[in-house]
């Protein structure tokens, strides 16, 4: 993302922000324009100096993601029918099953992708959003955190991916059949919502906050 690059570049020196300079930077291409410009002349993105609704969006998507994460864990992810016997497994149940079968590596991957990452994402986004809300100044590490969250978010989808592939491939009628459970949809939604949440976050607010606080 070009925006990130730009942010990285600016981090080095204690600087005048675009906003302080009376400019507005394009979040997509990094081109700066004078305040008041409506759209980026390079890429056509709408220019906003600071997206003040950003935090609301972050919180809203984050809550949505957390809400749907509950059924994703409570309801079965997979319904496996083998020789007439139907077995339903939730995410955590599946992890334990894998451990039982001795596939600790796979269990670890599933556990990290399905539990650790989403939960830490919730925590990270909530932490960043809270800091911004409280006007605490952000540091470089916070920005790294934000970058990491945004980067890692998509990998949570591997679980959904596995379910989708299995459901498509394993349709052997009586011998074995796999159907996705309600949790699969919920989990996919949860991942999507948290990604939107992370995307909605305007990283400029991280470094913006103290100054604004002082300014206001």
């Amino acid at each position, binding site marked *: 993302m070009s925006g990130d690059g730009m942010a990285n570049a600016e981090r080095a020196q204690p600087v005048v922000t675009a906003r302080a300079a009376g400019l507005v930077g394009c979040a997509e291409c990094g081109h700066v324009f004078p305040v008041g410009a409506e759209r980026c002349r390079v890429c056509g993105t709408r220019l906003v100096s600071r997206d003040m*609704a950003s935090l609301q969006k972050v919180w*809203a998507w*984050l809550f949505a993601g957390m809400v749907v994460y*509950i059924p994703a864990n409570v309801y079965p992810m997979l319904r496996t029918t083998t020789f007439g*016997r139907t077995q339903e497994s939730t995410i955590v149940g599946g992890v334990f099953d894998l451990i039982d079968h001795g596939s600790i590596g796979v269990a670890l991957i599933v556990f990290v992708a399905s539990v650790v990452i989403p939960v830490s994402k919730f925590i990270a986004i909530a932490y960043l959003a809270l800091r911004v809300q409280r006007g605490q100044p952000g540091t470089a590490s916070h920005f790294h955190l934000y970058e990491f969250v945004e980067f890692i978010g998509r990998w949570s989808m591997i679980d959904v991916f596995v379910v989708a592939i299995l459901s498509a491939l394993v349709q052997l009628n009586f011998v074995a059949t796999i159907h996705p459970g309600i949790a699969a949809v919920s989990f996919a939604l949860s991942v999507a919502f948290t990604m939107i949440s992370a995307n909605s976050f305007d990283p400029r607010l991280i470094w913006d906050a103290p100054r604004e606080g002082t300014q206001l």
Partner: protein
Amino acid sequence: MSDPTPAEMTVSPPRRSFLRNLSFVWLVPLLALGVSLGIAWQSFSDRGTLIQVSFGNASGVVAGETTLRYRDVVVGTVEEVRFTEDLGRVLVYVRIDNDVVPFIDDEAVFWVVRPEVSARGISGLSTVLSGVYIEGAWDNVPGTLTYEFQGSDTPPLNQPGRPGRRITLATEDGTTISYGSPVLFRGVEVGRLETPRLSADGRSVLVDAFIDAPHDARLSQATRFWDTSGFELSFGASGFSVDFDSLASLVTGGVVFDNLYDDGEPLTPGYVFTLYEDEEEARRNRLVRGPARGVAFSIHFDESVNGLEAGDDVTYQGLDVGVVTGLRSQVLEGDFGPELSLIVDVAIDPQRMGLPAEAGTEETVDFFRFAVETGMRARLATESLLSSDLRVELVVMDTAPAARLREVEGEAPRLPSVESNLSDFTATAEGVLERINALPIEEVMQQAISLMEAFEQLARNEDLQRVPGSAVALLDDTRALVGSEAIQSIPAQIEAAVNDLTALVAEVREGGAVESLNSALAQLDEAMAGINTASQSAPALAENLAKLTEEDIPAVLAELQGVAQTAQELKLDELVASATATLNRVDALIAQEAVQGIPAAVTAAIEDVRTIVADVRAEGAVQALGSSLRNLDRAMADISVASQDAPALTANLRQITETDIPELLTELEAVATTAKELELQALVDSATSTLNRVDALVGSQDTLELPGTINDALTEMRLALTELREGGVVENLNATLQSASDAAGSVAESVEDLPQLTARLERLVAETETVVRSYGERSDFNTQTLSALREVQNAAKAISELARAIERSPNSLIFGR
């Protein structure tokens, strides 16, 4: 970058109002929350009701996997399996779908379906792969929800909601009934038996059965159940017969029912049917349409009721009108103080007596009161000629002494009885004596008298004056002969001989002589047919004979007449005198010691006969008789063949009659002519002289003693006759009849026992084979029975092979091999 100085800007403060600042994006989490809550609510409300079913064991039941099915549709899942507190039973918690919950009331039953291989087939095969499941059954009427159930290990026969009727059968022997045995009606399976159980007192075996609708409508109190243990062997006058029902009932046993009469009383709650051992017994034990329909009477018999038992028929002119319900003795006040009397309790069905269907006890007793006054009596009668079973017979006797229905308060009305005219064996013996009595002894006496008269006339004859003396001597000797010990012992000998004969008859009866005789008769039949053909040509023969009679015989007769005339002219008087002399000579002959020894010889002969009979018996004479009958059979066959030639023979005969006999007659005529020419006179004279000479040998002094001697002789004869009578001949005849009866009885007994024998299949098969082998190698019966047995054997082998195959590789059920 030409204008580096950015202008100072006034930044307006953000709007502080929270509500106005609220973004639409908040709808997303709200929506998500709503949807999640909705899903949660839906799954909560859909998750059904938890019920608890307890089982003795829960083999194969897995929490979360095992399903509950109703009519093979999954309606619930086992959620939890655990034990009761005392570990006595397994509790299975099943979550049941909400749409069937209203129907789960206390009538619902649950059982575990497992794969099962039995004589009736393979069931629950699908569970081999999918694991066991719990099957539930309930009716389709919503009821009060119940949460706790007792599950059964086997499918209950009367599943709720399945139309039909549950009944209870009681039997004494539960060896041939087992769980799932079919209940058959005219060979069609209409129900199944449940597991037999002992009654509370342990004296009988109770088994519940479930009869499917609509066949349950046939059940009434007229219904009788009996055991069909597959095989039924019966042996009777019509021969040997083997019956067996379906293969399943052969292996597992089965129960058959039928209605003994129409419009039986409907079943009362808790009605228990009796399961009889066989059809015959079931049909015999029809206790007159249940106690409600029979009107109780009692009968007092003076004679022995040996052979009568509860369940025997009461008949009126051959029609069953009731049944004997019991026998007891009772002390009755008789003319000479208290007497022990035999009382037979009977139940009479009024409807069978022609009374209206609604007639009660009152009407029936009224009817009998009238009937008794018009001569109705009870008496004992035999069931059949050979059996000693008795029945009670109601008869109308116009000649019976007047009697009334004796009615005592609190007791069944007593029907008067009359002496039976039993054709039992006492009576039979009597009949034999009667027949002896009926022998024409009178006529014999008459003839003896007339003979005496003739003698008298003869005695008046001058020449005969001397005869009495010799006759007296003759009679004396005869008396001595009759009085001799040897003759005295003849009756005893005869008795022994008859004894042997009795045994022989018994053996003959046991052996297969009758069959041989039968076939011999068949052959004889054929022979008769041949003879019949031969007789076709008889008329021609008759014609020839007639011709002969017309032409030639008159001539012969004329000749003969001439001879007779000649004879008439002879001096017969002299001849008589000679005869007297001859008698004297005979007397002398009798007086000789050798003649005296004749009775002893006769005795010895009889003894020999007896010995022979004994030997014959010992040496397998019956077999010999059998073989001789078979020979006779063959002989008959030969005769039959021979009789084919009879027409030719007849033709020859005709030829002979046509040609040879006239010649013969001609010669006869010639002979007659010659005879006429002979001097017969001289011949008679010489005969007379000879007789005279003989006459001279005998004195004639004892003429006066003749009557006394005759008297003595007659006395001796009477004594002999008495001895004959007393000497056990009659007893022996009785014994013979008795043994015949015994033989019949044992045949009857063995017939009754045969069904029992069928109880154990293996033993039965062995026995049957033996019997069959002895029955002849090539008979139809043998072949059929053997093939039936062979099929049974094959079936058993196939079943065992199937079982072994399944045992070895259950996979073969899926993959075919």
